[in-house]
């Protein structure tokens, strides 16, 4: 209980008090506070429990780099896990609690783990819980270690995406960013300035400095006024650049103001911007590094700059009796400011010799300064009680132990790390700078880094690059934390090196140093400095792990934007959608299309409905909406020649008015798609594609046309949604069609199977194809898309008396399995060749070449044991489960013992034959008809007989009728 609110400092609005709840208790703060500053002002020390050891943790930082104060706000669906308390705006009624603590952050029952910490080094769990299996222990261990809880309900808030193009994008509205923005705007460039914080000014906010003779506060206000007044200037606050990508693309997450006027933004929680900029300027500033010593995670240990920010911006003094430990000049600013505000500076411990301390004389007038001294350890458990300093020798090792110094707060500064993350996202290289003991961007690069992000520091003085005291015994290393967020200690890093994890990337993965939500913002450089020291190399040689987006944690919902639920992607509706709805269709999504699965009547189950529909097609007629079938017109004098090169079968020789079933192959010889190709005219073909493949087939044709044979006089047009298709199938199909008054002779003689006719119907053009996917006489009637509903109604009206009923996809699938017809994606996968399916009759032997031809004679294609399409008949009459494997007991030298010889690809209980029917792909299946094999699905085992595919009407008399 040591932080306190100063009576006047800070830029909070003291006229607007705010009450909030933390861990179930009520507190008060002001508008302009963050949860962190308000807790500090209320004297709350423990704001979190550490990830692995459940040690009490306080505030280390004041900004987005905070590793320890991880909180969860709200409750229920609106609860937000894993927020940094330093970034949670204080709003009336805020409810927040610490993560990873139970029952509360101050009395955490798992804290006993902390007492065992010496037995839980890096990789302890993985090494220890290997037998009988890590998976048995993992859930239990995960419960102990972890962060916040994900809400178990859908996110009720919304997110949106926005796009912008600008000349200059400036990331960071600190002094450097504001200066860059002013220069850009004055040059006339369209300029966008973005700032992570809710207010501009960065670290200069509230500080008593002056810029070009103006007090910094006024300077910031004037800069913002000029930017806001410029018509080509714009700024986004609460907006974080999370990633930079090639060619000037920036991803920016803008958070809505939680205290904004209610309703103004609706429930919009955030907006993901994709901004293209001709020039990107990174003014992201720098992050202060802590020092590494025993107990450096104790609440009360805080970055010197954070204490400055809490003071200047929020008017909160971090402690009453303060020790500063530093290795640079800038940290003294905090000591002076806090001292001015009324805190006692008990001592300043400086790693450097007297001669290197820039402000030594002035500082010594106000408080004791101990050169060549750093903390060895901090005493205290829930709050700093004292610090035990050690004198350093010239090499940085401990020379002697000094007297304990009683204090309640230890401010630390181990130097500054430029925020090079965004520079690195674009592959920008880094250079080690000894002056500031950190990596800086190598410029020029794709982005321009300016200010502290470029490594420009005016007031650091001469740094001594020491982050921890080298002790002879090393006992202190067990509780000296390098990475506070992941509980990685000095011991862990040294252990990893002893176990030969010598690369910085390996160190990260083995110890988790630099992982999780803060991605090592405060720990990376210290970690690699320690690694370098252990290896006897320089930090430049050791290097740094690669920075990748996102720079800062971002809600998943922001990436989804509006694309959730029904707006995930467009749902394609059939032209006769309303007619299907009227007839009670059960609509389901097949690919992007919403199509009737079946049409249940009264209390029918799916199986009963499908059974009825199948029987109607076999005995009378069924009406099926096939509009989603792909239709691509191929037009031109060379259309026949082109399709001859595309298809394995002969197309140029086909006469106008005829059509044929064909498979389309990839250059690998595998089946891309199947469908019916019709020749409408000498120079006009209609290529049919399966519903899910229309775009793919159209693209395949264009690829070959544009890139391989650009000399052919051919054009292709995807007319899939120009024509709706109603398929009428069954023994009564012809009779029903004849009643409709089409201008086409539908008699058996005039319109044989596998032919196509053009004419008119209902006063509009129509095309009718005689092809069959059911095994019964079928007519596919194409009509302009807008007339689909009309045609459907007319067919139903004229066919009802003959037994015509609408049928859905499930019935069609049942009918085709009875016939042994393949369905793309069921009977084919990425390696299926035409001969595997018994379709070698579709492959011309005479044609010199076509797409995929050479691949059909590769050794792999000629193997005798290729999986081939067969029928599978369960001996008990059941329908074998789809995916069940055909299991062989024949010895197999590679796999040993039983192995799979194939599997069931389609299976149904046949209404027509009253037994189970299945198709499958089985090794050398065509030569094994009659063989009894074992089918296995999980633990279920059954016997089946291999048969030819196509149990119903094998001669095909019915569909040719």
């Amino acid at each position, binding site marked *: 209980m040591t932080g306190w609110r100063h009576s006047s400092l800070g830029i909070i609005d003291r006229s607007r008090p705010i009450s909030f709840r933390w861990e179930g208790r009520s507190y008060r703060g002001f508008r302009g506070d963050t949860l962190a500053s308000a807790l500090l002002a209320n004297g709350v020390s423990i704001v979190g429990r550490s990830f692995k050891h459940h040690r009490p943790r306080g505030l280390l930082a004041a900004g987005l780099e905070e590793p320890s104060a991880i909180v969860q706000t709200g409750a229920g669906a609106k609860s937000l896990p894993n927020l940094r308390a330093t970034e949670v705006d204080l709003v009336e009624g805020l409810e927040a609690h610490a993560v990873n603590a139970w029952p509360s952050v101050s009395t955490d029952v798992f804290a006993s783990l902390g007492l065992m910490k010496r037995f839980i080094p890096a990789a302890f769990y993985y090494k220890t819980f290997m037998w009988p299996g890590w998976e048995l222990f993992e859930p239990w261990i995960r419960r102990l270690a972890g962060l916040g809880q994900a809400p178990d309900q859908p996110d009720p808030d919304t997110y949106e995406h926005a796009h912008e193009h600008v000349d200059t994008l400036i990331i960071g509205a600190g002094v450097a960013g504001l200066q860059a923005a002013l220069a850009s705007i004055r040059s006339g460039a369209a300029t966008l300035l973005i700032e992570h914080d809710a207010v501009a000014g960065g670290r200069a906010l509230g500080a008593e400095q002056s810029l070009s003779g103006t007090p910094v506060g006024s300077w910031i206000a004037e800069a913002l006024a000029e930017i806001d007044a410029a018509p080509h200037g714009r700024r986004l606050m609460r907006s974080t650049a999370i990633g930079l990508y090639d060619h000037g693309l920036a991803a920016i997450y803008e958070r809505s103001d939680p205290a904004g006027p209610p309703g103004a933004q609706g429930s919009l929680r955030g907006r993901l911007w994709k901004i293209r900029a001709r020039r990107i300027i990174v003014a992201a500033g720098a992050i202060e590094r802590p020092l590494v010593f025993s107990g450096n995670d104790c609440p009360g240990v805080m970055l010197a700059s954070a204490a400055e920010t809490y003071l200047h911006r929020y008017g909160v003094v971090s402690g009453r009796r303060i020790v500063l430990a530093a290795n640079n000049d800038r940290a003294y600013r905090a000591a002076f400011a806090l001292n001015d505000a009324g805190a006692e500076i008990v001592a300043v411990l400086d790693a450097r010799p007297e001669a290197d301390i820039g402000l030594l004389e002035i500082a010594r007038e106000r408080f004791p300064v101990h050169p060549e001294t750093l903390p060895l350890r901090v005493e205290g458990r829930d709050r700093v009680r004292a610090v035990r300093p050690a004198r350093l020798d010239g090499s940085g090792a401990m020379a002697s132990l000094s007297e304990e110094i009683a204090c309640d707060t230890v401010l630390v500064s181990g130097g500054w790390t430029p925020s090079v993350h965004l520079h690195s996202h674009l592959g920008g290289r880094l250079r080690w700078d000894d002056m500031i003991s950190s990596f800086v961007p190598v410029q020029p690069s794709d982005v321009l880094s300016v200010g502290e992000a470029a490594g420009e520091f005016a007031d650091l003085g001469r740094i001594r690059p020491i982050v921890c005291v080298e002790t002879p015994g090393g006992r202190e290393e067990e509780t000296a934390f390098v990475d506070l967020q992941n509980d990685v200690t000095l011991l862990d890093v040294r252990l990893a090196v002893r176990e030969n994890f010598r690369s910085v990337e390996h160190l990260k993965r083995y110890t988790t140093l630099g992982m999780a939500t803060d991605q090592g913002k405060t720990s990376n450089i210290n970690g690699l400095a320690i690694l370098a020291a252990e290896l006897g190399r320089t930090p430049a040689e050791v290097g740094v792990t690669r920075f990748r987006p996102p720079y800062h944690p971002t809600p998943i919902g922001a990436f989804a934007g509006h694309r959730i639920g029904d707006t995930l992607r467009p749902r394609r509706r059939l032209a006769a959608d309303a007619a299907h709805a009227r007839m009670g269709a059960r609509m389901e999504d097949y690919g992007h299309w919403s199509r009737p699965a079946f049409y249940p009547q009264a209390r029918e189950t799916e199986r009963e409905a499908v059974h009825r529909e199948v029987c109607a097609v076999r005995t009378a007629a069924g009406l099926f909406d096939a509009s989603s079938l792909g239709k691509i017109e191929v037009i031109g004098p060379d259309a026949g020649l082109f399709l001859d090169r595309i298809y394995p079968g002969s197309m140029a020789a086909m006469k106008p008015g005829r059509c044929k079933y064909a498979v389309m192959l990839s250059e690998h010889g595998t089946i891309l798609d199947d469908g019916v190709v019709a020749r409408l005219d000498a120079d006009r073909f209609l290529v049919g594609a399966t519903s899910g493949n229309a775009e793919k087939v159209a693209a395949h044709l264009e690829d070959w046309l*544009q890139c391989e044979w650009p000399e052919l006089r051919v054009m292709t047009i995807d007319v899939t949604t120009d024509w709706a298709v109603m398929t009428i199938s069954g023994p009564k199909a012809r009779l029903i069609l004849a009643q409709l008054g089409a201008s086409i002779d539908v008699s058996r003689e005039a319109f044989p199977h596998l032919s196509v006719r053009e004419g008119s119907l209902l006063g509009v053009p129509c095309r009718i194809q005689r092809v069959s996917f059911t095994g019964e006489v079928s007519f596919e009637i194409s009509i302009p898309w807008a007339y689909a509903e009309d045609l459907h109604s007319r067919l139903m009206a004229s066919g009802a008396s003959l037994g015509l009923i609408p049928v859905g996809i499930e019935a069609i699938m049942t009918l085709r399995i009875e016939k042994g017809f393949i369905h793309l994606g069921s009977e084919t996968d990425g390696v299926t060749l035409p001969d595997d399916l018994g379709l070698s009759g579709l492959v011309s032997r005479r044609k010199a070449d076509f797409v995929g031809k050479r691949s059909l004679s590769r050794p792999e294609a000629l193997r005798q044991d290729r999986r081939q399409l067969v029928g599978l008949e369960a001996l008990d009459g059941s329908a074998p489960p789809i995916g069940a494997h055909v299991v062989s007991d024949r010895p197999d030298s590679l796999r040993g013992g039983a192995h799979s010889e194939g599997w069931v690809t389609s299976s149904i209980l046949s209404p027509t034959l009253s037994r189970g029917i299945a198709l499958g792909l089985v090794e050398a299946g065509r030569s094994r008809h009659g063989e009894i094999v074992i089918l296995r699905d999980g633990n279920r085992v059954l016997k089946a007989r291999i048969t030819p595919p196509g149990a119903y009407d094998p001669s095909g008399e019915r569909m040719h009728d």
Partner: protein
Amino acid sequence: MLLIDCPVCGQRSEDEFRCAGQAHLVRPGPPDAVTDEAWSAYLYQRTNLKGVSAERWLHEFGCRRWFNILRDTLTHQILHVYPVTEARRPEETGGGE
């Protein structure tokens, strides 16, 4: 994300395009005269080079035209956009092979 200068539509974002890999593959033929090794090389072997690479691109969500680009695979800089019917460019790394 690349900004690609489509020859028909102008500068558009990469997510409207599809890359189909190495350009200037020569389809061997006639099939009877092609060895298994040569055909396999045509199907599967790609240079995957570090440097200036010629690639086939399709403006799939736009004009649906195919074209070639020269792209530095290290810097992602696009040096040239040209028709598929044009010959290889001298800037291409290993392009003379």
